[in-house]
Structures are given as structure tokens and as C-alpha cells.
């Protein structure tokens, strides 16, 4: 009997030629460059997007604050006018209405303060003395 046999030989590891290796190295560099470039562009775009969103957020806050300030301004203006309304004639009317029996001071009854000293402590003392004098 004739037995046909095939000899099985283990494949030898192919050695990469030096030239092929050199070629792949050569291709890798520009790809890397492009990838790096794209990466930078991507990073820049992302940074821009992040910064923009932050700016938007700050802007919204600023607008909010501005509108709050604006409202405060309007409130202050309103209160200022209200204060002026309840002043002078209104007070006189209330005095009459509540029968407070208050009257204007007579001429010469009110004494003017005369401060003739220089240092602050002395001024305070002089003012207090004058106040006490005018209350007597």
C-alpha cells in the first residue's frame, strides 16, 4: 500500500523587510500630523464652545443683574416720590387731623448753633452743649 503523505512544515515567520518597515514609518508621520492637527482643531472648537457657553451663562447673569438693578432703580425713584408726597403739607394735615396741638416756633425761639472750635471732639462737645442749651 502506498501511503501518500504530506509533510507538514511549520510556516517560517515572515521577516518584514527593512524597506517595508521604513515605508510604514514614513506613512505614519503625516497621518499623525493630520490627526494631531484635527485634534487641535477639535480641542479649539470644544474650548470655543465651552467658553461661549460660559460667556452666555455670564451674560444671562449680567442681564439678570442689570434688570434687577433697573428694578431697584425704579423702586428707589418710586419711593423717593412717595417720600416727597408725605412731606410738608401732608404732615400739617395729619397734625390738624390728629389734633396734635403743635404750633410753629415763635421768632427768636429757635437758636442757631455757633461752633467756634476746631478739633472734632471739641466740635461734638460744643454741639451737645448748644443742643442742651436750646432745649432748656
Amino acid at each position, binding site marked *: 500500500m502506498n501511503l501518500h503523505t504530506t509533510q507538514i512544515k511549520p510556516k517560517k515567520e515572515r521577516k518584514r523587510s527593512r524597506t517595508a518597515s521604513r515605508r510604514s514609518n514614513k506613512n505614519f508621520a503625516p497621518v499623525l500630523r493630520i490627526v494631531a492637527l484635527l485634534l487641535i482643531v477639535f480641542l479649539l472648537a470644544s474650548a470655543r464652545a465651552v467658553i461661549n457657553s460660559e460667556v452666555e451663562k455670564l451674560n444671562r447673569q449680567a442681564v439678570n443683574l442689570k434688570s434687577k438693578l433697573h428694578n431697584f432703580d425704579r423702586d428707589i425713584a418710586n419711593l423717593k416720590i412717595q417720600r416727597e408726597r408725605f412731606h*410738608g403739607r401732608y404732615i400739617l394735615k395729619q397734625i390738624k387731623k390728629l389734633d396734635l396741638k403743635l404750633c410753629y416756633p415763635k421768632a427768636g425761639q429757635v437758636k442757631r448753633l455757633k461752633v467756634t472750635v476746631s478739633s472734632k471732639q471739641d466740635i461734638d462737645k460744643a454741639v451737645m452743649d448748644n443742643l442742651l442749651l436750646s432745649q432748656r
Partner: protein
Amino acid sequence: MGNSDFKTRIVVLGILFSLVFTGLASRFYYVQVGRHGELYGKAKSIYTRVQKASGKRGEIFDKNGSLLAGNIPCSDVICDPQLTGSEEECEQTALMLSKILKSPGGRIYQKLSTKERNSRKLRYGLLKKEVSLDLIAKIKDEIKKNKHKGLFFQEKTKRFYPKGSLLAQTLGFVNIDRDKAIPVAGVEKATNQEVSSAKGKIKTERDRKGRSLSYGYTEIDESKNGKNVYLTIDEQIQIFVEEELDKLVAKFKPKSAYAIMVDPYTGNIMAMAQRPTFNPNDRKTMRPDSWRNRMTTDVFEPGSTMKPIVIGSALDYKVVTPNTVFYCENGYWRDYRLRDSHRMKDASVTHILAESSNVGTAKIAIKMGKILLYKTLRRFGFGKKTGIPLKPEATGILRKPQQWDYLSITRFPIGQGTSVSPMQLVRAYCGLASGNLVPLRLIDRIEDAETGALEYQPYQTAPPVFRDPSTRAKLITMMKLVTQEGGTAKRAAVPGYEVAGKTGTSQKWINTDKSKGIRGHYSQEKFFATFVGFVPADKPRFVLAVITDEPQGSHYGGVVSAPTFREISKKTLAYLNVAPKFPEQIKSK
């Protein structure tokens, strides 16, 4: 396919491509270069947001900085009918608004629920104009609570007079026409150029939703606030004057009444009031005859208040002395048809003034002569403007000597036949009080609200009214007698102080009316009751005139106007802290 065919096709294709390319290029050129301006403008208007900014109208203060006219923030309540929801929701919103705004609910509901007109969608409905901030806050609370839809608030400011009717005719008021302030009268009109604000614009790039881009292009043309005006008026004194004028009106029910107080040395108007008056914040109650400033626009015959001016001038020209005696015709001078209220025979010039003798004054004027009398009246500012910035201003009627008839010389010195404005009369008395005819000042300073820079209105030099400085003292001594026992105005005397003044009771002239068969004549029923004086007499702090038109009950200046003069003076002297000359009089009272 032959080689030549292929080449032809290539050529044709090339030409075609070239034509298309040329077409595109020319279109590109046309769009980018030819229509650049137009299209760029269109695009810019789409992505640019323009906000109008209007500055505040300047405020008006008294001399101490108390606000008399300001701007109050408010809002218009508006709605977008497309967003207001169903009829039921509109009903609820209308009910809420009518309660808070105190407006008819039906009208509000109609505005909220009318979503179309003439097959056009409505996007705007004005529910109420100029609503106060308190009410706006209430509405906003309700919106939050009950989720009312489609309501918006348009912020604005409106001119507001916090003191109501105080100084109303002098301040005037402002009408608003399409956000533009149109001053109608008073200081508002006189100082409109200074008080008006300049409008500005803010241009910004916007996003799709209309929000401004923070990093976009911004152009700001800033608006400017109007300047603030400070008057010479003192609010407290103005309150005294108006209080007392109200009492006079309540007691004598006149057609009108005025009071003006002026510092005779500076010409500063310290207070000026008029009745009837109005509240400039309430347009419904305003009537033209109440907002017209009669103190500057109307004229009247001054009556006996003219006498001190003529007598003072006669003293100055040495025509008479205080002791020169005239025969007063026992109360009726037949030649000139002139009558006195008190019968007098021989009277000195001092007595003629104290008793207000018409006959005596006429005789003094005749002794002076036409020319001197005319010169005197002109020198005291009659027939001329007073310098007050309020417009229009009447100059009064003072005819030239050539136009006088034989009665004129006896009538003009007693205040008949000439007419003056209340302002002119006060100014003439400033001349008597200080010796100089000062131009009247109403505006003290103008402040730039942004920089704080102050611009003072200059004091003008005032010509002396008397050639001899001693004349003033002589005349004042004589005028003091008017308010003392035996004078015509005892009721004007202020305890503790010497008052110099003069009463005036002038009949009103009734014009000819052919339709009613009336000939021009002096009325026996209608009078002007006047008192003009100054306190303290020797060194006056103010000149005060109280003029009452057609008072009921009494028509004498010494009865109607003099007590008002006294009460105003008392309060003002105390307020100005003027020490009394006779303190014992005050204590005994």
C-alpha cells in the same frame, strides 16, 4: 466613436462649463459687489437689535432741594390676545385686572378675548395706561398664583407733582404725545430746553430669539438726562401762603385771589400762589381758568396801592415834604369828580397816605406834573416786563402823556385808568422797600444731574428808584402809619414788628356791551381788595402782596386782604427766625 467626436464633446462641455462658471461668477459679482450695500444693510437689520433709550426729564426743586416736579416710574398693562387662552381664562384674567385696576371688567375682557379683527390676528391690546408700581406688583403676584396668560408690562415714567396743587400754576404741567413731552405752561415751559432729555440708541447683534450677543458688535449712542432746575421758592413759605389763601377764599368767596412774596434785595420770589387752583396729577379736574397763571398774565387797576409810589416820587423830586398840607375838599372834589371814603379838610402828605385820600393824592400829582408822574410810573417798572421767566407776561397799560385827558393826572396816581399785573405791583414795592428796582428771579440755579455742575442764574444790577437815598426812609415812616391805629390797615399789623404797606380797594371796570345796552363804567359791586406791604419795615425780609378779586361780604383791602397778610407774615417771620423789634407785644398777646 472617432477621436474627433470625442474632442468636440470635450470642447462643447468645456464651453458649457465656462458659460456656467461665467454666469455664476457674474451673479456672484452682482450679489457681492453690485448689491453689497443694499443686501448688507438688509442682513444687518435682521441680526441687529436697536433699543431706544430715553433719558429722564429734569426735575424741579425748591431752593432747599425739596422736590416739586419729578418722574415716577409706572407701566402700561398690555396683552397679546393670541396668548390669553380660552374665553373662560380671559374672563378670569379680566376679573382679576378689573379688581386691581378699578376699571370696567367688560372692556378689559373684550380686549383680552378679541383675537381677530378684519381677518387679521391681533397681537396687541392696551388694557390700562400708566399703572403705579404697587398695582403692577399686585398683578404680577396674581399672575404667578393663578397662571394668567398673555399679560405684559411696558415700563415707562410719567411726570409727577408730589406736592399736588402746591405751586401748581407756577410749575405748569406737561402733556405727553407719543412719548414726547410737550410743556404747556409755567416753569415746565420756560425751562423746557434745559429740562428736556436727549434720546439715545443701543445697537447690538442678536441671536435667533432676539437676545443680544455678548460677544457681538455693540454701538451705544447714550441718552442724556435733562438738567435739574432749582427755584427761588421756599416750599415751607409756599405752604404758609397757600394755607392762608385757602382761609381767605373760604371766608370771602372771591372769584380769584393771589399772593406773591419777594425778597426786595435780591428779587427772589419766595412764594406765589393763586386761587382757584388745580392738581396737575389729576387731568379730569383741570380747567383752563385755574391753570392760567393770572399773577403774570392778568392785569388789574391797582387802586390806592399806587399812592405810595407817587407820593414817594413827589418827596424825591422835592415837590412836597411829609408835612406839606393840602386841602382835601371835605371828601369830594367837584372839578375832577373825585371822592374820598373819609372826609378830610386840611391834611398833611403823611395823613393823606395814612388815610388814603384820593383828593389829596390827586393834588400832589397835579403839583408834580404830567411828565414827572409818567417818568415815576415808568421808573417803578409799570408798562414793562418784570424779568420773570414765565411766559406770557403782561406789561399792563400805561398810556403816554400825549394820550392823557384832563382827568388822567388825577386818576393814575390813585390807581385808576392804568392797569398792572400783580407781579409788576410787587416789584414796584420791592423798589420802595429796598430802594432799588430789582428784576424778579424765579430760577435760582440749574444743575447738570450727571456731572453735578451748577449754573447760577445771575443777579442783575438794579437801578435806584429814588435820586435822594433819604426819601426811602421818609416814605417808610409814612407807610408804617397805614398799619397803625388810625390807618386803613390795622389788621395787617404783625405783633412785635413794624409793617409798612398800603391797602387798595379798586372798582372793576365794566366794559361796554351794546347787545345788553351797557355803557363802560366802574362797578359799584365788583372790587379788587388789595394789601401790599413789607416787614420789618426798616430792613424788610420780604414784600408781600395779597390781591382778592371780587370778594363777597366786604370789599376793603384793609378788611379782606390785610388779615391774610398778617397771618402769612407772622408765620414767615418765625420761620425765617427774624427777631421781633418789640418782643413784649408778642408776650402780651
